């Protein structure tokens, strides 16, 4: 299996602060980490490699310091890493980013056909969940989003079965390879790499690709130029705090407190009263049948 994992270096959200005036994220001095969802993607890829053989190549588009994230991925056990970096890529939105990543994956595919591409469900700094599907569409890959578990991989038949978390339940899905999977946080916590992996990662040469080596064909589709997204305004949510109300409780007359509480609930949410009425009628009707 030839597996590619796309990761992103993001500011550690536990240390993040928001600029009080512009409402933008203040990245200065905030430690960078691998996007947490991407860790589940890496682990899923490594598990498939461990069972079925092959290799895991981790790629990222970002400024040169993003190499730190790639080295970390190598320390977890990934086999190869490619940093896709070029000044022309800066200011990219999800459309431009997915174009660059898709081009790079296609370039990797020329060395050896890619069977699976993994991404995290979304990044914690952008929260769009658009890049994964964008890559799949451009490369004509089968797309499985919000996957919580890889159930089975059948190399011979070229098929993969996954569990996908959906509203109200879990879907068991099967598709043919090559496919792109966006991973949810699941049970597959990232492994603790071995000491030899730590040494290998520290010494590894990280391949660095610019626009040319990444196989970018249309320069109008990358960076700020290729990004139609316009951020018109950034604002914090206005808190809708309402004052808590107190109900006096007299241990001698508990009924009074519950009555007072119910009265308030019924006054605030009339729907509850109507529902209760309906239940009363139905219960009454049921009693008549007996």
């Amino acid at each position, binding site marked *: 299996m030839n597996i590619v994992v796309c990761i992103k270096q993001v500011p550690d959200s536990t240390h993040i602060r928001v600029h009080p005036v512009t409402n933008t994220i203040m990245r200065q001095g905030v*430690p960078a980490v691998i996007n947490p969802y991407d860790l589940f993607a890496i682990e899923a890829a490594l598990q498939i490699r461990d069972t079925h053989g092959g290799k895991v190549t981790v790629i990222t588009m970002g400024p040169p310091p993003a190499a730190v994230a790639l080295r970390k991925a190598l320390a977890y056990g990934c086999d190869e890493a490619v940093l896709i970096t070029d000044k022309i890529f800066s200011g990219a939105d999800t459309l431009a980013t997915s174009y660059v990543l898709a081009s790079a994956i296609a370039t990797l595919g020329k060395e050896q056909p890619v069977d699976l591409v993994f991404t995290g469900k979304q990044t914690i700094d952008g929260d769009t969940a658009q890049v994964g599907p964008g890559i799949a569409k451009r490369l004509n890959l089968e797309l499985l989003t919000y996957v919580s578990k890889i159930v089975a991989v059948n190399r011979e038949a070229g098929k993969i079965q996954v569990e996908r978390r959906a509203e109200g339940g879990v879907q068991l899905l099967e598709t043919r390879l090559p496919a792109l999977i966006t991973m949810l946080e699941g049970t597959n916590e990232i492994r*603790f790499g*071995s*000491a030899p992996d730590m*040494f290998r990662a*520290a*010494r590894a040469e990280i391949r660095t690709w610019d626009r040319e080596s990444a196989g970018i064909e249309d320069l109008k589709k990358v960076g700020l130029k290729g990004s139609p997204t316009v951020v018109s305004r950034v604002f914090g949510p206005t808190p809708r705090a309402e004052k808590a109300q107190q109900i006096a409780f007299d241990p001698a007359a508990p009924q009074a407190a519950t009555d007072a509480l119910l009265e308030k609930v019924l006054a605030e949410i009339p729907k509850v009263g109507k529902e209760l009425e309906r239940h009363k009628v139905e219960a009454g009707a049921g009693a008549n049948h007996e």
Partner: protein
Amino acid sequence: MNQPTEKFDVIVVGAGPAGNAAAYTLAKAGKKVLQLERGEYPGSKNVQGAILYADALEKIIPDFRDSAPLERHVVEQRMWLMEEQSHLGTHFRSDQYNQQPGNRYTIIRARFDKWFSDQVQQAGALVLCEMTVTELLKDESGRVIGVNVDRENGRIYADAVILADGVNSLVASRAGLREDIKPAAVALGVKEIIFMPKETIDARFNLTGQEGAVIEMFGSISEGMVGTGFLYTNKDSISVGIGCMLSDMKQQQTTPVELLEKLKRHPSVAPLIAGGETREYAAHLLPEGGYDALPKLYGEGWMLVGDSAGFLNAVHREGSNLAMTTGRLAAETLLELFAAGQPASASNLARYQARLDESFVMKDLKKYRKIPGMLDRQRQFVADYPGLLNQAAFNFFSVDGRDKEAKEKEIIASFRQRRSLLGLLGDAFRVWRATR
């Protein structure tokens, strides 16, 4: 298990000032060095006030001033004896400290440690983080031949191991190289870094350009415990903190947070930090046992440096310079042995001890060896004198119609009431003897 065996000239455990000094010195000399750090990145576990004493670093990286992230050079030193509502203090300020090269600098360790580790890596050492050493590997004769880390296939070999893994050196304790730390031999320090505009700091402390001021505080702030407070000016932030003996905190059931909050509310401190934003909070243990608490410093194939050995001068608030110096001396000892083709045996590593004895490190620790015990037994130094002196000053400077002679008598009486004449003389003698 066909993994290749990793073998180095020296393994340095820990990426604090002591470990960095050792790793840098060895790597710069062309040795194959592996530095292991258990934190997520070099410096992630490190905490200090922090003052950088130029001399110790200069002996390792002579041109450090060109690239190190220094905050301010210290031109003014204040010492405050604190009472609840006042402080009695001394200032020493000298324009001589504005002459280059500077002598002492305030630093922010998060930035400084990143820089220091970069120098180590550029010198050629391999630095691996998130590698926790669990035990020392020994051969049949008991000689240390490497370390084991908490990862699969974690055996790594070396001709010598330098332990620089900090105040509660688990590796050394586990290997039986030293005892576990005792609460009476360590202080617990807490600090905050409070940010505010540079101009505000300059105005509040009467500073210009890169000038900095530091305040050391004693007295009521430690609530009768043996401890000190500090306030250092950085470029656009102020480091403020307090440390007290761990055994005292345990006995008094005080938390460091309460002490720091109280210090920040003190009427002499509050206006200096008003309006700032706290962005960093840290706590750390400090080995304050002094000379008599030092363990054996070397053995077959291993050496202890920095906090892990307990190299700290509590009286002068010096630690990182002792750490860097001992790290350098350990490295130089090994370089001398390697050059002569000799092994890092215990008898050869005795040269490390000799180098230490010749240096200011051991001389200073010996000079103050009686201080920790004295302060522990003679609580009047922290509990009584600062208050008495502040009351005396208040009395003396208040103009209230009484004649000066009456005031002087009153002041002397107040001292003799708390400490008898004999006690006062005894205290003077104790200070003289302990610092002689």
